[in-house]
């Protein structure tokens, strides 16, 4: 479903990601772990087209994301191509990024109406059932500022889901939340995962959660993928010295 091939990314002289190769199967759930500054956010932002790779290619659902083929040669993608491939990807941000000037219902219907071309009735119907699913059916007329962080993040998840992306990206979606609100958001993620319809790429520091829902854990360190494998193996018997250090440091600080 997703394929990073030899992807590197630099900001000026700073090389943030180096030679990333990563393949994600349809409906697979991959958790990305690693210390702060290791390049996790940059990796998912490239897949959301928020950041352009310096080199390498990214494929989504069989289509090149940042390039297109012209007479057998790769040329940089134009806005039209980006929009087409981008429609397969959705993202939830650490800071929610809800639209503060719109009520909750409209936050969720705006893109289906103006991007997918749904009628208002269709969009509202789906938005309401999605908001009910994340436990916010009673907040349709509230503004984002009137909700708790956990509620805002659940709205953000509903807003992304109604676009029916094939791949969903979650970048530390519980990191900005008060500890008592983390659980409700993780619960929603678990439900999406359990449905098995969506490919998920989850950047997280919640190791127990990652272990429970992910099919595969990817450990990134210093801009490289140092180790990847099923949760039991990576958490239970990490091969790489850096992974072991990271995990033990983590257990101590939590």
């Amino acid at each position, binding site marked *: 479903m997703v394929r990073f091939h030899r992807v590197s990314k630099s900001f000026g002289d700073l090389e943030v990601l180096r030679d990333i190769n990563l393949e994600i199967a349809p409906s697979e759930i991959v958790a990305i772990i690693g210390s702060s500054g290791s390049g996790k956010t940059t990796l998912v932002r490239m897949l*959301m*087209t*928020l950041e352009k790779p310096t080199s390498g290619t990214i494929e989504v659902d069989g289509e090149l994301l940042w390039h297109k083929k012209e007479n057998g040669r790769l040329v940089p993608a134009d*806005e039209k191509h980006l*929009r087409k491939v*981008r*429609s397969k*990807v*959705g*993202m939830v*941000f650490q*800071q929610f*990024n*809800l*639209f*503060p*000037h719109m009520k909750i219902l409209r936050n969720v219907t*705006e*893109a289906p109406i*103006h*991007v997918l071309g749904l009628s208002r009735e269709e969009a509202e119907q789906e938005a309401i059932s999605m908001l009910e699913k994340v436990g916010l059916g009673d907040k349709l007329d509230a*503004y984002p*500022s009137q909700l708790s962080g956990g509620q805002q993040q659940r709205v953000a998840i509903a*807003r*992304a889901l109604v*676009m029916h992306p094939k791949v969903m990206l979650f970048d530390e979606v519980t990191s900005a939340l008060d500890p008592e609100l983390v659980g409700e958001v993780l619960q929603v993620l678990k439900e999406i995962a359990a449905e098995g319809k969506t490919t998920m790429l989850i950047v997280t520091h919640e190791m127990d959660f990652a272990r429970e829902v992910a099919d595969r854990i990817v450990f990134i360190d210093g801009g490289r993928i140092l180790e990847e494998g099923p949760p039991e193996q990576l958490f239970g018997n990490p091969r790489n010295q850096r992974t072991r250090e990271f995990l033990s440091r983590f257990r101590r600080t939590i």
Partner: protein
Amino acid sequence: MLWNWDYALSILPSLLEALQVTIYATIMGFAFALIFGLLLAFGRRSKIRVLSLISGAFVEFIRSTPLLAQLFFIFYALPQLPYVGISLSPLTAGILGLGIHYSTYLSEVYRAGIDAVPRGQWEAAIALNFSKGRTWLNIILPQAIPPIVPVLGNYLIGMFKDTPMLSAVTVVELLLTARIIGTHSFRFIEPFTMVGILFLVLSYISSLGVQWLEYRLNSRT
């Protein structure tokens, strides 16, 4: 007698008629400035370098030359330009002059408003695959404009008070009308005092209007 009520009352209709010209010029000029100012703000942000350079230079140029000189140019010099030259009526020239002059100030105000919208809003718009136009129309501008309404309102009142300049391109607006009346009757105290009061009253009403608008916009979030 310093103040003659009969005289004051007799000139009121002429002054009110002239006031209509002043108000019309302000509304049209400000509408032009609102739209053209936004276009200039877009231009300056454009990724097309030529466009952003031209917009920036235009804003700098207009801001560092006097409004009066711009009015003279539009009214007297523009018709003499080869090929592009057109003659405008005094009022149209005046509206255009005010509009262009103020649009350069408004473009800076818009810019500040747009820059204040958090990056995350742009990123959410991309993640939801909104087109560029939709992003501006439905997400960025509705957040950028409410906070700048008070500043826009101040410029509206500023433009209103600048309308007497239009008399320099022969627009018979309020102040010029008062002067003509005074010259004919040799009484200046009443007409000029009344002009002052009319400006005061309208500026006050406008500022109330702006406050109301500000309140309305802010109570939504």
